[in-house]
């Protein structure tokens, strides 16, 4: 058992120490680098979040967690859809590395339902394609993919050299759509790795593509007319979407589409017939939410179904939005039923976890969402930050007007969306919206990571390896959350690392059962005894020569 009082006293000293962290750590950097890095390291203040530097270029050589635009577009947003043939146009590597590495689970509905997720398709560009152009090879690759698989849709993803040599993947897409005919949908993404400053640019490009090429193509209203919602920014890592689908079904909420966990083309095409959009990962999908509101009149709210309490909160928001007693009652019944098991599991885990320290450096929303789960476990998040978040993900959407648009953001296509002439339909009247807002419902709002963190805790954007090493060395958190590249560095220091990209093959962690899984996994991690065996007995004891009595 942990003496919570002792830990709390430590936490006070810790806050004092955290304040010195920035100066100490940037002292190691070259002068210019130090100046830049210092702006990305701040102390949290939930009442008035300080300005943090985010979504700016990574410092060359600093050893970053970040990936590229292609990874954000193909890997994150479009990867989880099972019935699109995703062709990577480029040398073999990019397609190879994004092949099955993100644990996007999917559940085909029958044996004949398409599922291309276990496949990797690439044009495998060679030097001759770089010299003479790769458009013809891409066309031929599409022909071959069609001949072999007859998919409903083919998407093309551009890698770095494609943009440089001037291959026009959009023109190829149009050309091949005509050539193949029969209603096949083919579209391309200019998601070359060098665009933007991180994966985030790729999310934006993917969002634009979803809106232009998929959303709104199928107006048929299917299923129940009641409580029609979409869940945006949920990628079904480790089965998260399955758990949320289960909960929605139990509540009688009609989930039309997840963007894009366990998704299909048809779900995207039909998503505009929903009456509410819920945004889970704000960073990767808020653009689609905005565009669907403008074009079709679907309001969006931010939800956070990571953590049992937050999941309950999401369900109550849905009930509040639809405003029908029948739904409210059902939601309350589901919450009551689910929470029994959650409470039991949480109390059991808390015996080991309460009072412990966590650090989260991951993604563009997970470093925020998972703090809910750690709170439920009685753990304090002493340092956190995103890999590819923007200022609004830290400070809240209120700062969006004041964010400077730099060259790296300007080169990402901004599509202008206008109200759909025939299909725009306000889901609520102005008065209804006002009434809901007066009742505490917030539309188009996200308060950001810093709103949740205790005053004085560290917030670091685009954490470098050096900063990570210093954090672990100085503060010895009980759990460090990041990704695969960081995992074994931290563990060599004797601290368990929880991967929050792939969950260490765990999960689901969303929803109620997900929370229970997470409690158990963290309890296991902080309770694992092997960390006590790092030193051999003779390393910690004085050498004593044996003496014998004869």
């Amino acid at each position, binding site marked *: 058992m942990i003496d919570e009082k002792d830990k709390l006293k430590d936490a006070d000293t810790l806050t004092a120490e955290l304040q010195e962290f920035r100066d100490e750590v940037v002292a*190691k950097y*070259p002068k210019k*680098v130090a100046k830049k890095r210092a702006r990305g390291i701040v102390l949290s203040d939930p009442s008035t979040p300080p300005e943090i530097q985010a979504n700016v270029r*990574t*410092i*060359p*050589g*600093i*050893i970053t967690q*970040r*990936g*590229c*635009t292609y*990874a954000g577009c193909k890997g994150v947003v479009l990867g989880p859809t099972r019935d699109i043939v995703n*062709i990577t146009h*480029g*040398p*073999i*590597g990019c397609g*190879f*590395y*994004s092949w099955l*590495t993100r644990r996007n689970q999917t559940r085909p509905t029958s044996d004949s339902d398409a*599922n291309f997720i*276990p*496949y*990797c*398709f*690439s*044009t495998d560009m*060679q*030097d001759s*394609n*770089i010299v003479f152009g790769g458009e013809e090879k*891409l066309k031929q*690759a599409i*022909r*071959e993919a069609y001949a*072999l*698989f007859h998919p409903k849709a083919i998407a093309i993803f551009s890698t*770095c*050299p494609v943009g*440089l040599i001037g291959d026009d993947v959009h023109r190829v897409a149009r050309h091949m759509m005509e050539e193949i005919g029969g209603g096949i949908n083919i579209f391309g993404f200019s998601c070359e*790795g*060098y*665009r933007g*400053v*991180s*994966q985030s640019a790729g999310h934006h490009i993917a969002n634009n593509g979803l809106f232009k090429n998929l959303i709104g193509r199928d107006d048929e209203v299917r299923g129940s007319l009641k409580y029609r919602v979409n869940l945006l920014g949920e990628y079904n890592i480790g089965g998260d979407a399955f758990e949320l689908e289960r909960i929605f079904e139990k509540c009688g909420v009609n989930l039309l589409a997840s963007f894009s966990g366990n998704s299909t083309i048809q779900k995207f095409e039909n998503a505009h017939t929903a009456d509410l959009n819920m945004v889970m990962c704000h960073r990767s999908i808020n653009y689609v939410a905005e565009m669907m509101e403008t074009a079709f009149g679907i309001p969006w709210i931010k939800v956070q179904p990571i953590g049992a309490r937050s999941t309950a909160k999401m369900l109550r928001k849905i009930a509040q939005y639809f405003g029908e007693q029948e739904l409210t009652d059902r939601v309350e019944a589901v919450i009551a039923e689910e929470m029994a098991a959650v409470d039991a599991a949480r109390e059991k885990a808390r015996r080991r976890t309460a009072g412990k320290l966590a650090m989260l450096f991951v993604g563009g929303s997970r470093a925020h969402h998972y703090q809910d789960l750690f709170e439920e476990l009685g753990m304090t998040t002493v340092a956190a930050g995103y890999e590819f978040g923007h200022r609004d993900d830290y400070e809240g959407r209120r700062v969006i007007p004041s964010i400077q648009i730099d*060259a*790296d953001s300007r*080169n990402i296509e901004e599509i202008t969306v206008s109200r759909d002439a025939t299909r725009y339909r306000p889901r609520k009247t102005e008065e209804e919206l006002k009434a809901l807002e007066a009742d505490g419902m917030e539309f188009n709002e996200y308060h950001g990571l810093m709103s949740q963190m205790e005053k004085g805790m560290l917030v670091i954007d685009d954490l470098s*390896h050096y900063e990570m*090493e210093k954090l*672990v060395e100085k503060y010895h958190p009980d759990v460090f959350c990041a990704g*695969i*590249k960081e995992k*074994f560095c931290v563990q*060599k*220091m004797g601290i368990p690392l929880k991967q929050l990209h792939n969950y260490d093959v765990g999960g689901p962690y969303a929803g109620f059962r997900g929370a229970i899984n997470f409690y158990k996994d963290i309890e296991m991690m902080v309770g694992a005894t092997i960390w006590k065996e790092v030193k051999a007995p003779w390393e910690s004891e004085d050498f004593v020569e044996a003496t014998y009595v004869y």
Partner: protein
Amino acid sequence: MLLRHTTAQEVERKALTINPSKTCQPVGAMYAALGLHGCLPHSHGSQGCCSYHRSALTRHFKEPVMAATSSFSEGSSVFGGSSNLVAAIETIFTVYEPDVIAVHTTCLSETIGDDLTQIVSKAHEDGKVPEGKKVIFCNTPSYVGTHITGYSSQVSSFVKFFSAATPKKRNVVNLVAGWMEPSDMREIKRIARVMEARTILFPDMSGVLDAPLTGKFEMYPKGGVSLSDMAATGDSKFSIGLGAYSTEDACVKLENKCKVKFEVVEIPIGLKATDRFITSLSRHANVPVPDELTEERGRLVDLIADNSKYFYGKRVALFGDPDTLIPLTEFLLTLDMKPAYIVTGTPGKHFDESMQALLAEQAPEARYKSGERADMFQLHQWIKQEPVDLLIGNTYGKYIARDENIPFVRLGFPIVDRPGHNFFPHTGYVGATNLAIKILDKVLDHTDRTCAEEKVELQM
């Protein structure tokens, strides 16, 4: 079915690769660079490349894989990556203090034509390279060759930048390691030690990518060939390259630069390849083969003879890298198994010629393919046309193995779902024994699980 869209029906493909049996050059360069002590690999391109390569290597080794990137923006892609690389060099030497930065290019920096010689000399002129520190580099365009090519280029750059000939030759044999596991390198060093041969193995990932948990993170773990040893390779009297694809180029460069004669043998996987390696080392290091190794060989032969009936005639499909597949195919033939289908995405005549020679007598009906579109989809289609009894390859093979219900032995890169490959070597007689036992385990487990109940045998 996981690969539900794969059928036996082939459509001629000229452009589309499906489920590749290869990846791109830079990851190989990064892997090889980790085999030099005190070296930090650096990827000159978009940061996604570096992130992908580090992730791929980390998933495989379950170890820290440290590397930096030039983090190209669109601006650098237009104006060149010179300032990014110079800035990176300054940051790396200031913050991470390696002895060497090993820069490799990517398709991005190659397409725009960045000149590394010029950029690195600019870094020197600008005083960004501290006294006694080194920046080495190699060209690894992703649109030429494969990860094996990149590995080979990095190993050659070690020779180019470090190997030096003094007037005095030393009684040392260089062992140029092809793409293999740290455990395989450890085993090869053990064999050399048992033979009392004086050798320098490079690159050497043992002690780097199989480091102990000590409570301390080591940016530059104990292992890796030292810079002084690397320099001394120029004074060695002979080099043995292990694996033509990954080491021949380095051997040639070393001969040209320092007049060190060489021989390229296969990576010692299996009985005969190990025989050849040991014979070569014995001859060139001028040491006899000790009984200890002869006994290890004898134990391997004993194991194979004892279990001959379980190996005999079993059809095997295999995929991976040519330097592994060539001796592996030979070993399967030693076991009297029947290699049926063999694919490698790495192009090159040596593979085709070796297969032709190896298979002519014992398995003339075998199908093999290398280079573009020699992919796992092709392999799977062949398996659909006529099934096999065993599949050998990297983790991606498990999707085929499950769909087709065939025993599956993991060998190659990447293996991201099972530990063990960096503990149990596949090289030497001990490695061949490990491999033969693994094959038996998988094949016999499959028999036990799938045969009729009355056919379940207690003794096998």
